[in-house]
């Protein structure tokens, strides 16, 4: 944990309520997020029990499996969930934004919206990932056919879960993680995984302190778990008899009674979390959006557009990444992490403060400025203004290190020397193309500035990866071509 993170937690303990650790919202929030609160049958890896879904807090839709051990009923549930998820995806494809054509002249478009799914916690993300995996290889013909929407749901859920791994992407959010990005509570990270307790710290009900509200959240009767795992007493005392009632129902009336009973008891478990989810969305919505959030949302929309457009011709995502794809993906994730870290710090002085504490950034006042200094050692003179910045931060950047300005990352520079409370920076870019800087591009004496090495490391251009067919001998050679078969849906251990 960073020093500031620890401090914020201590302050939260002292104050009895959560402390903000961000001044802006660092994730995109859709106008109509699709909230999914899933429940799983205890003891099964991915047997859906119920889910409360919808984009409107007033009109949740409860989907449930009356007998979760029955595979046909499970896939019926998947088809119902597919209707909701695919419906929302289609809605997002209605508005299209035209983009300037690509270099090779092909037209580019971007859907006006990207679907956003929000689940209560990380386990919820894991559940959607597993549900995607267990449905995307299902066949719609042959021995055990399923509704055509089921494998489509599987592919989309897998895509959402893959996208979740990407730092800065906001297509699938786990509410507890998102809240933790913006507030620090006075409890442990493990306890923060409980949505009700975390919200108790952030926004305690009238007359209660954060710890008191969090303590209430520990009672599974007053505040049922946010899933996908259910409360064991509920399982034994309420759910099991209700499912038995369904199994034993003798006729249509009996069945519909049993289903109604299940609906009521499952609803009692889901509604409290459903309400918490929308309360949390309200809290997040009240924060102003960070400056770079829109740019990251554009990447999400690009990804969505590309996947939706190529959906028809594609196969389900492979069960495992092959060597080349794994390396590529890791590379992409690392680049995304780097730019996400940098963007958050640029957007938010509270986040930047962490880097100033660790010496990767420094802030201060310009005490000396040579805005028109030229470097004439090369063939052509180059504009290289010097700035001397007085700072109280513990600077840990070595001479020669590339830095950029937090206020305007386009303004690049290089550390020349660091000495007792003063840093000399040579500006190298972002001042126009002439030998005198564009007006306003170079900070003046007395200006407050903040420079950081964040976001200056990224290698330019796309790196070379071999083609899949040219996977080298060190990595087992080229993998076999994928041919869909009926066995695809089987798990290795089943």
């Amino acid at each position, binding site marked *: 944990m960073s*020093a500031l993170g620890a401090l914020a937690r201590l302050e939260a303990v002292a104050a009895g309520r959560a402390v903000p650790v961000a001044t802006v919202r660092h994730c995109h929030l859709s106008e109509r997020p699709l909230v999914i609160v899933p429940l799983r049958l205890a003891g099964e890896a991915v047997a859906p029990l119920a889910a409360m879904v919808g984009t409107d807090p007033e009109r949740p839709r409860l989907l449930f499996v009356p007998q979760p051990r029955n595979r046909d009923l499970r896939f019926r549930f998947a088809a119902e969930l597919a209707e909701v998820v695919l419906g929302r995806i289609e809605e997002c494809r209605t508005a299209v934004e035209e983009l300037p054509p690509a270099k090779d002249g092909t037209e580019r478009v971007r859907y006006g919206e990207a679907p956003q799914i929000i689940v209560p916690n990380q386990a919820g993300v894991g559940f959607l990932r597993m549900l995607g995996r267990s449905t995307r290889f299902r066949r719609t013909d042959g021995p055990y056919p399923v509704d055509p929407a089921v494998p489509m749901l599987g592919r989309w859920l897998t895509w959402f879960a893959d996208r979740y*791994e990407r*730092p800065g992407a906001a297509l699938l959010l786990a509410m507890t993680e998102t809240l933790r990005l913006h507030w620090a509570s006075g409890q442990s990270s493990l306890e923060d995984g409980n949505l009700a307790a975390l919200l108790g710290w952030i926004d305690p009900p009238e007359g209660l302190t954060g710890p008191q509200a969090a303590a209430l959240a520990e009672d599974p009767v007053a505040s049922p778990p946010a899933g996908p795992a259910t409360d064991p007493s509920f399982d034994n005392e309420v759910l099991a008899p209700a499912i038995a009632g369904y199994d034993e129902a003798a006729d249509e009336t009996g069945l519909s009674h049993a289903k109604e009973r299940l609906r009521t008891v499952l609803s009692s478990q889901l509604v409290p979390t459903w309400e918490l989810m929308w309360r949390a969305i309200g809290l997040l919505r009240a924060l102003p959006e960070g400056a770079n959030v829109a740019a990251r949302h554009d990447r999400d929309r690009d990804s969505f557009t590309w996947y939706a457009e190529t959906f028809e011709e594609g196969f389900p995502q492979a069960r*495992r*990444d*092959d*060597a*080349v794809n*794994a*390396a590529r993906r*890791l*590379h992409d*994730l*690392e680049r995304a*992490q*780097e730019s996400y870290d940098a963007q958050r710090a640029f957007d938010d002085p509270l986040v930047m403060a962490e880097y100033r504490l*660790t*010496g990767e950034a420094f802030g201060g006042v310009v005490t000396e400025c040579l805005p028109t200094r030229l470097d004439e050692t090369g063939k052509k003179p180059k504009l290289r203004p010097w700035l001397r910045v007085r700072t109280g931060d*513990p600077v*840990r950047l070595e001479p020669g290190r590339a830095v950029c300005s937090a206020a305007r990352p386009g303004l690049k520079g290089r550390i020349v020397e660091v000495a007792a409370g003063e840093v000399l920076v040579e500006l190298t870019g972002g001042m126009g193309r002439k030998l005198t800087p564009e007006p306003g591009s170079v900070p003046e004496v007395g200006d407050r500035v903040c420079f950081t090495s964040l976001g200056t490391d990224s*290698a330019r251009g796309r*790196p*070379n*990866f*071999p083609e899949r067919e*040219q*996977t*080298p*001998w*060190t*990595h*087992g*050679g080229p993998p076999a071509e994928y041919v869909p078969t009926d066995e695809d849906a089987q798990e290795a251990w089943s």
Partner: protein
Amino acid sequence: MTFDPGAEAGRVVDAVLADLAAGHRGVVVDSPPGAGKSTLVVRAAAHLAGAGERLMIVAQTNEQVDDLIDRIATGHPELALGRLSAAGYAPSARVAAHPAVRIAQKAADLDEHSVVIATAAKWATLAEGSWPWAIVDEAYQMRSDMLLRLAGRFERALFVGDPGQLDPFSTVEVERWAGLSWDPLRSAVSVLLAHNPELPVHRLPVSWRLPASAAPVVSEAFYPFTGFRAGTAPGDRRLEFSARGMGTPHDRALDEAAATGWALLELPARHTVRTDSEAVRATAALAVRLLQRGGVAHSERGTAPVDAARIAVGAAHRDQVTALRAALGPAGAGVTVDTANRLQGREYDVTVVLHPLSGRRDATAFHLESGRLCVLASRHRHACVVVARAGIPELLDAHPSAEPVHLNVPVRFPDGWEANQAILAHLAEHRVRA
């Protein structure tokens, strides 16, 4: 039969060179700390280039590339040596001393050169070109995705590295590849051997750096199944001081280290922040005191003073390094202070180490990583002084490794927890209480 380290090491090197000629696609050489890895790389380069093969050498950092250039150009001036570098590269003094070495940014400019050397990152930018042979140095520190990117450039390769040092890492945490034989987060050698189990693996058997007092300790703790021995006998190396100690704990710790090769300066148990000011002061004071007392090192290389350039101070975190540098101040000018990551591959007479677990409340995977302690405990030719707060064994007992276990992931040896215990148990015999 007596153990002749020179002959033993020579036999392994000969076997490696013979394997290079035997038509294997790859040859792996594991090298414990200070076992002559760079010497082997230079010899193998000369051997292959001498046989008329064009050769590429892959190192991990610019520093390592420059080191190798210096060694090869000095030892084998007849080889046409080229260095591939990025656009802004300014040759270091070591490279500039060899005007025959050609520096270029494009591989095409080095077509005539029989040996071309560059960092892995530079090699990975090449989209074409092929060399019959490659030597990959520090191959255990290279991630397998890097190997994937540059494996198309060579037909056969010699991989050399130290399996006990720090594993490569990533800035993102991803579990989706755990258990895959081509997991991009694993080291290049582990992926190579997973797909090509028939490749010959050699081990250099002798550490020329570590003294007789350290080799068995490090070997047992960090290389439990692939042991090595010291190249020198117990009496071959001696460390003495020109000035006598004054009986302070610092002086007693230094005397203990000079006499036995190890010392633990133990501070009272306390939970502290990472930059524990007391421990930092003690560590810096030891280094300064070592300079003041004018250490003299006697070894098979002769007698030399232990000046600042022969001393290193090591720590786990960068903020600790900053604090240590500040605490050393002008009195410790010239002493190397760095993190374990950056001390990899370097050698000193005496090292002063701030124990990674000193003053901590928890033992995370980062702090338990055996490679980190291994690097810190195996940089010295004469003595290693460790500074730590009391209570680390109890801390370890309270934090057994609890990493998730994945199917098909090879179990890593040594276990960091156990290695830490082993080193502490040994240090306990050389304890001086502050």
